[in-house]
């Protein structure tokens, strides 16, 4: 057995602008590394001669793919080539239509990429776009082949210019090519062989060839050196053991370690690592699929992320991300979708789009679109229902990336950036205070015994917002929870006394309410707002304001049918609206946009105030609760 066979095949993806020579380069690599079936080249050359056609190396790839499709002689594994060092497999050869979808599916598992730029044309749209996608996918081992050097008389200036321009582009997206290689794929210069039996047309370049470069690349390293990340995949109770199963994505663990499970702050000690038909095991590391047991009973389920207490992941319901979308339909702001990150799966929505990026120029697309479309790349803020445990992608790529669903299928993906880590170690004594640094939200929450939040009531005039708000406030207060109502009475007369009822003023009114509610929630209070807030856009804005400050936001639709509200008409407003005395009255002469996906809907038309409040309390207490273990 040779040593080559024993090495893992390195997975390489070839990308670049159309016609810049991908197929030719692949064909040439096959030829020069003698990875083709015997007689193939001669056969093709003869066929071309008979047709009076010039032989092209790209035909070799076409022929391989063709035969593959025809299933005659070539095994799939033949879309691989070997250098003296090891075997390679080419994933997703170029030339298909559904490019983004297939490129991403293929390239997401690539270990390395060859990006082609034709010297005679220079950097083109796809040269940039593909480079950007490689960066999103986290592929760092990239060699740039500056191809068709024969067409520019092998001039060093041309090559240097491409190197300068493309290096600058890559730098903007935080990437770096390992090497630029001047190549003539057609003639084989700097592809795989140094000696082609002709004088070297580029004596000014003495660096590595394309295959030399590929040989320097490494298979992916498992993330053993990073902090532990062990997403719980499932919990098994097939016998008297309670096994927490999953794959360790980063770091390592051993029997006796204390783990903290995010979201939340439950901790447990590893009792054993369970194995079947293998020697006893006391430690495990990144890349292994394992099952562990804990010393005590804990309610942990799929979606919990285990880590050590130091270096725990970020836990939040809101974050910024760079996303790409390839769904069949558009993904609009506020549209409910599902987000999957490792084994976590949560309802999610885009709350704002910072910019939609043209991946070829890195410029933001002009205009203010409220959605992302197929093939878009964008920077967005995402909110999930519930808490998500994750890392910034630059700290841990595996925990900083997620997919968004389009129906049942994966519709897009994204990487998270800019999240803030907070210290989640448990303070040991009641008297410890950090002398430096701010008071963290966690500390405030721990002091209060609950989290702050914005509880945003929306509904028609007369639907019962104020009544429900007051009853809710009383209940919360009685439970020892800090709470406060913001409503027309205390806001309109003071903070917003300079605002009227024009459309602009209504928008500003809601914005100010949202800002104040956010501050109060940040201070640890459950801030209840009771405004009609009829427009979807305004409420979304309010959500974004809270979300960006890391504050939980719960939208509650106080929903009573218009007829009932009009019947009740406590302040006689509907009557005035009907007679035209009040203009632009919501529900009568101005629209009410009901929430599409509120956290709760309370049907105040047919249930009592007490029932509505109970419904909200059940939901809220779960979410503002701070785990008992987490105390100062």
């Amino acid at each position, binding site marked *: 057995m*040779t040593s080559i066979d024993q090495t893992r095949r390195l997975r390489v993806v070839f990308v670049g602008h159309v016609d810049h020579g991908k197929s030719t380069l692949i064909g040439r690599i096959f030829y020069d590394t003698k990875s083709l079936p015997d007689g193939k080249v001669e056969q093709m050359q003869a066929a071309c001669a008979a047709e009076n056609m010039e032989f092209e190396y790209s035909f070799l790839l076409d022929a391989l793919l063709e035969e593959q499709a025809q*299933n*005659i002689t070539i*095994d*799939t594994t033949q879309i691989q080539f070997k250098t003296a060092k090891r075997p390679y497999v080419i994933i997703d050869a170029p030339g298909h239509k559904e490019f983004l979808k297939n490129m991403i599916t293929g390239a997401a598992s690539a270990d390395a990429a060859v990006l082609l730029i034709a010297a005679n044309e220079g950097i083109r749209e796809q040269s940039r776009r593909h480079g950007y996608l490689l960066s999103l996918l986290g592929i760092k081992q990239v060699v740039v082949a500056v191809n068709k050097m024969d067409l520019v008389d092998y001039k060093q200036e041309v090559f240097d210019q491409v190197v300068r321009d493309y290096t600058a582009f890559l730098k903007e997206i935080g990437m770096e090519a390992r090497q630029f290689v001047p190549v003539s794929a057609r003639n084989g210069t700097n592809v795989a062989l140094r000696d082609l039996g002709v004088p070297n047309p580029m004596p000014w370049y003495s660096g590595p060839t394309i295959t030399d470069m590929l040989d320097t690349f490494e298979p992916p390293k498992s993330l053993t050196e990073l902090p532990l990340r062990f997403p719980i995949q499932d919990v098994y109770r097939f016998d008297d053991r309670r096994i927490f199963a999953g794959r360790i994505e980063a770091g390592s663990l051993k029997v006796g370690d204390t783990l903290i499970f995010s979201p939340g702050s439950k901790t447990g000690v590893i009792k054993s690592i369970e194995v079947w*038909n293998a020697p006893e095991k006391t430690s495990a590391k990144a890349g292994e*699929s394992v099952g562990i047991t804990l010393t005590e009973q804990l309610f942990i389920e799929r979606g919990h992320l285990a880590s050590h207490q130091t270096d725990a992941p970020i836990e939040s319901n809101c974050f910024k991300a760079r996303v790409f979308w390839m769904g069949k339909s558009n993904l609009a702001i506020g549209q409910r979708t599902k987000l999957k990150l490792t084994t976590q799966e949560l309802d999610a929505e885009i709350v704002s789009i910072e910019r939609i990026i043209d991946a070829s120029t890195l410029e933001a697309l002009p205009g203010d679109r409220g959605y992302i479309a197929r093939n878009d790349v964008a920077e967005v803020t995402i909110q999930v229902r519930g808490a998500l445990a994750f890392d910034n992608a630059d700290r841990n790529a595996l925990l900083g990336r997620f997919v968004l669903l389009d129906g049942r299928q*994966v519709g897009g*993906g994204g990487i998270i950036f800019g999240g803030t880590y907070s210290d989640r170690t448990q303070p040991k004594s009641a008297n410890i205070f950090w002398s430096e640094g701010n008071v963290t939200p966690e500390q405030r929450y721990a002091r209060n015994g609950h989290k702050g939040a914005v509880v945003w009531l929306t509904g028609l005039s007369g639907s019962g917002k104020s009544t429900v708000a007051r009853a809710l406030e009383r209940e919360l207060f009685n439970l020892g929870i800090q709470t406060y109502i913001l409503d027309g009475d205390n806001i309109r007369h003071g903070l917003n006394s300079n605002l009227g009822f024009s459309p602009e003023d209504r928008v500003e009114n809601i914005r100010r309410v949202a800002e104040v509610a956010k501050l109060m929630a940040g201070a640890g209070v459950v801030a209840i707002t009771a405004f009609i807030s009829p427009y979807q856009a305004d409420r979304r804005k309010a959500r974004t304001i809270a979300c960006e400050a890391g504050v939980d936001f719960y939208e509650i639709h106080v929903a009573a049918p218009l007829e009932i509200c009009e019947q009740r008409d406590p302040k006689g407003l509907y009557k005035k609206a009907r007679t035209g005395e009040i203009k632009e009255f919501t529900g009568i002469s101005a629209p009410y946009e009901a929430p599409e996906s509120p956290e709760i809907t309370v049907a105040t038309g047919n249930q009592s105030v007490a029932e509505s409040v109970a419904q909200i309390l059940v939901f809220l207490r779960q979410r503002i609760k701070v785990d008992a273990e987490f105390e100062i």
Partner: protein
Amino acid sequence: MNLDFREHPAYAKLYPAPVPNVPPVFFPETIARGDAAHLDALEAQSIFLIREAFHHFKKICMPWSMGKDSNVLIWLTRKAFGGHIPYPLLHIDTTYEFPEMIAYRDWAVEYHGLNLIVKINEDARAGRGAYAERGPIGYDTTDPVTVTHELKTVALQQVMAENQWDALITGIRRDEDPTRAKERYFSPRTKDFEWDYKDQPPEFWNQFTTSCAPGEHVRVQALLDWTERDIWMYIQKEGIPIPQMYFARKGKDGNKYRFRSLGCWPISGPVESEADTIDGIIEELANTKTSERAGRAQDHHERNAMQKLRAKGFM
């Protein structure tokens, strides 16, 4: 149990019947290989996939052909679930199995404690019901592609309809045949078992299509990244018991033969081989130029036969 198959027609040609009354199972010696580090990653990924499948699908089943890949799947399942096998296994019995394979099946059910469902398309074999007009389907009367379709694909459809499974964990490998190159780990199939390979859902970062509409199902291909050689190296590393027929026996012409892939006896041919150990098989694979299914007549019967069978829902 009668374990003397010398009179069985399956052994009428080159390949001889096994020594009478020897259990049809081979226990490989467990050997730690120096070149097997990559198997750890393959194993971890397969266990991850199997656990994902088990989590997401309520009604799940693992087809089991008794062959080497199938036995690796059982092994990985037991590793994934702390020794347990928490779903039924399914054997689609064409009634053309080598008799020693049936003996192996009985042995394995006991050894692993399998919950095994055996499915035969009885109507097709007997020429009843929907087959009343055509008459019995079998290799003596019908062409091999049709036999495979009726006795495997249709049998599978029948048993799927009876059990309403929403996912099947299979042992398809990408290196097996070219149509599988573009397969996904979680591959949705329509009600008619069709595989729309031109418009497959994206799959990356270990996030899969983990639900399907009623009547549809998902194939979870837990061995997709393995090669034939990886399978053998893993069998050796773990000492996984497998059928005897993979190892060389002296044929009636004095040469030695073994099976690389096991199928229906009327259309399965052995390959000439000296390999009577796993080392021997691994060595042999390093030098072979023919494909794994070269011994199966069904694949040669028609050009593109595999592709057709695949699109129709065959494994």
